[in-house]
């Protein structure tokens, strides 16, 4: 099932927005502070210049400081923002020698300015003012006392300049963000290009095309592409296996059918009823074999098709094994062999399995052993209990199978290189399928001095508990 959980673009956009908003807010606070600081500095230097100009005009006459207020100083103070201006020249006692407004210069301000020039922001009659004070030593013939020059103006220009600088910074920042957003979107488009190309390639792929992908992908998509390739390869293999199985099955069915046809043709040409009788018997045998082959094919196909088994009840494998061996021992085919049971564990052993599946499995193993060993051979079935598993084994003292052929035996239509029997070669394939279904493991091994052991390991389970908790 494909569940769409938001778009990559939107997620990226949200992250970008969050980052930009967060960092941007901090950046803008800093910008606001620094631009207004810069504006203050720029205008403070005007105050300094005005104070200097006024200080130049201070002269001493008859022991009194005298200021002929220079018009230029006032113009410097007013700036082109036409600020309201304030000036005061104070004598050593803090008494105004000359001033244009009766603003009070606090004694502590004067003390501070006595040490070093100083600027401050304060409120006079409801308006914010910036004041700058500076002390000048001046010498006259009668007295030599310092004078303090205080100048000030309203702060309209400072705020306007600060705001203007800030607005400029802000607009640049916004433009940058916008540009970054556009570039990001474009980059995203380019980055998602390989994904789009891959999608297009997959969409235009032929249904039968199971070949590996032919695409240029970035590092981040290599895994995806490889996984897709693996998937295709697996599909290709299973498809090939299916085709081979179908071809093999058809071939296997064709041989007995051809035998039937030739036998019946021969009988038809003959006039002798005895030949007819013999042909009919041969046909009967052939039909038997063919029908058995067909049923094996059917069960193999069904096993492969059913896939994963559902939840099944625990089964006592000891009882099933005993019952099955007894059943087979009584059959006609087992007449010439020594079919027996090894010593079984005393108590029941529980596994998760269907009864029919275990019977089918045992049946196939016993049938195989009977078919591929000479008459009089000994076939023994048994169980070995381990800590968490149980091993079910079938051993014979027949000719055995060479080690290199054993794995192939599990493939359908594989007879271990033996052409001397009428087996279909499907038995072990069916057993393997069942073993996989039950979560077990099938293995073939050699018996000394000769013979074959087929072992099925199955996980044990607690008869009262569920499948997942084997004790």
């Amino acid at each position, binding site marked *: 099932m494909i569940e769409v959980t938001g778009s990559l673009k939107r997620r990226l956009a949200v992250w970008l927005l969050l980052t930009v908003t967060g960092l941007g807010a901090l950046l803008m606070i800093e910008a606001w502070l620094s631009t207004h600081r810069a504006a203050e500095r720029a205008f403070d230097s005007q105050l300094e210049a005005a104070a200097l100009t006024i200080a130049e005009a201070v002269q001493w006459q008859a022991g009194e400081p005298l200021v002929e207020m220079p018009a230029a100083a*006032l113009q410097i103070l007013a700036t082109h923002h036409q600020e309201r201006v304030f000036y005061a020249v104070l004598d050593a006692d803090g008494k105004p020698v000359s001033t244009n407004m009766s603003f009070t210069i606090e004694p502590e301000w004067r003390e501070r300015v006595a040490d070093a020039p100083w600027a401050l922001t304060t409120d006079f009659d409801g308006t914010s003012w910036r004041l700058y004070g500076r002390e000048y030593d001046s010498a006259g013939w009668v007295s030599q006392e310092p004078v303090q020059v205080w100048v000030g103006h309203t702060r309209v220009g400072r705020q306007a300049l600060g705001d203007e600088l800030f607005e400029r910074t802000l607009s640049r920042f916004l433009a940058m963000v916008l540009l970054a957003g556009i570039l990001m979107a474009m980059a995203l488009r380019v980055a998602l290009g390989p994904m789009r190309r891959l999608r297009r390639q997959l969409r235009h792929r032929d249904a039968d095309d199971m070949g590996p992908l032919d695409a240029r992908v970035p590092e981040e998509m290599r895994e995806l592409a490889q996984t897709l390739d693996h998937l295709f390869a697996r599909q290709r293999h299973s498809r090939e296996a299916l085709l081979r199985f179908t071809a093999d099955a058809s071939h296997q069915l064709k041989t007995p059918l051809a035998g039937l046809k030739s036998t019946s043709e021969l009988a038809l040409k003959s006039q002798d009823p005895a030949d007819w009788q013999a042909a009919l018997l041969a046909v009967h045998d052939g039909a038997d074999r063919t029908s058995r082959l067909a049923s094996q094919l059917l069960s193999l196909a069904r096993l492969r098709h059913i896939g994963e088994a559902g939840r099944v009840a625990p089964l006592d494998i000891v009882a099933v094994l005993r019952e099955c061996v007894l059943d087979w021992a009584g059959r006609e085919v087992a007449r010439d062999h020594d079919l027996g049971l090894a010593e079984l564990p005393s108590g029941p052993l529980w596994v998760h399995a269907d009864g029919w599946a275990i019977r089918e499995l045992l049946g196939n193993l016993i049938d195989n052993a009977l078919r591929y060993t000479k008459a009089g051979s000994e076939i023994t079935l048994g169980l070995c209990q381990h800590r968490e598993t149980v091993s079910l084994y079938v051993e014979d003292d027949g000719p055995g199978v060479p080690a290199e052929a054993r794995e192939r035996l599990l493939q359908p239509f594989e007879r271990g290189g033996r052409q001397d029997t009428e087996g279909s070669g499907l038995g072990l394939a069916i057993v393997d399928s069942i073993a996989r279904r039950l979560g077990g493991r099938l293995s073939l091994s050699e018996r000394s001095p000769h013979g074959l052991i087929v072992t099925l390991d199955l996980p044990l389970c607690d008869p009262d508990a569920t499948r997942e908790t084997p004790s």
Partner: protein
Amino acid sequence: MTLYRRRFTWMLLVTLCALVLSARAQATPLVIEAALDYDVVAPLLEAFRSAHPEIDLEFHDRSTLTVDALVSEADPAPDVVISSAMPWQMARVNEGYAQRLDSPAARSWPAWAKWRNEVFGFTFEPIVMAYRLDLSKHMMPPQTHADLHTLLTTETAQLQGKVTTYSPLKSGVGFSLFQQDARYTPRFWDLVAGMGRVGASLESSTRAMLEGLSDGRYWLGYNLLGSYAMVWAQEHPEVIVQVPQDYSLVMMRMAFIHRDAPHPAAAAAFVDFLLGREGQRVLAGQTPLFSVRPDIVGPYTAARLRDQVGDRLYPIPLNASLLAFVDPQRRDAFLARWRREFRRDD
């Protein structure tokens, strides 16, 4: 039918009367304290009254120094303050006594004729010399400041007691003009010394000087308001107005709305009218105050004055430097120097 109509007419009349009466009762008063002759400005005030019948205009014509004192002392405060004493007006605005006028006319007003959008120079009055015809019988009438200085130096005896000018002490306008003169050239002090030598009479108003000229008491007047002198000369042919050919100062009347104006809306309406097309047209056409606006046509406009006397018009700049003129120490120093030069004996 007729009866009904008559009754209806009566009702209408009564309603109208009631409306008029209530309108009269509700009329917003507007108090203007101005250093501006009522006779000169009357056409403007009439135009305003007819444009704004809902405002009851009260116009007080006072001296510049009285007007200045009223700004801080009057209770209730005046709505609009008009004065030709530019430095004092500027100082009051700097002290925060004005309120900002935000109107299209105020915004488009030339930047050189306003400050902070609070105070507006709304006239453009050249400062002139005036002489009596008698003068030209005895000597070449002066055309420049230098001519005047020469006359005062060479014709000391003939001009004794016949020269008049503003008193810097008694008149704010006079003081401002002399300050501005002194800024342009130090030779101005020679002129003052020359005035002292001929025993110039110091008057407190242009009107007094003009009357003296017409009476024959004076032959020559220096630094008269051109606006008054030109009107006077039209009715008194014996008085000739001379715009100085080297440079001519230009004074502007400055108007602002008082911070504590009891009727700010009416005050804003008045100043807006003053600066607007209509007010300036009246100013240019019916008063000799000269309109500042370049888009106004009439006999009295700054543009036309420039055409007549050339580019030698030097308006007293309407900026913070005016504040220096009212600095007490600077003023004292200036007046002391004035006295010293006026009594200079050499």
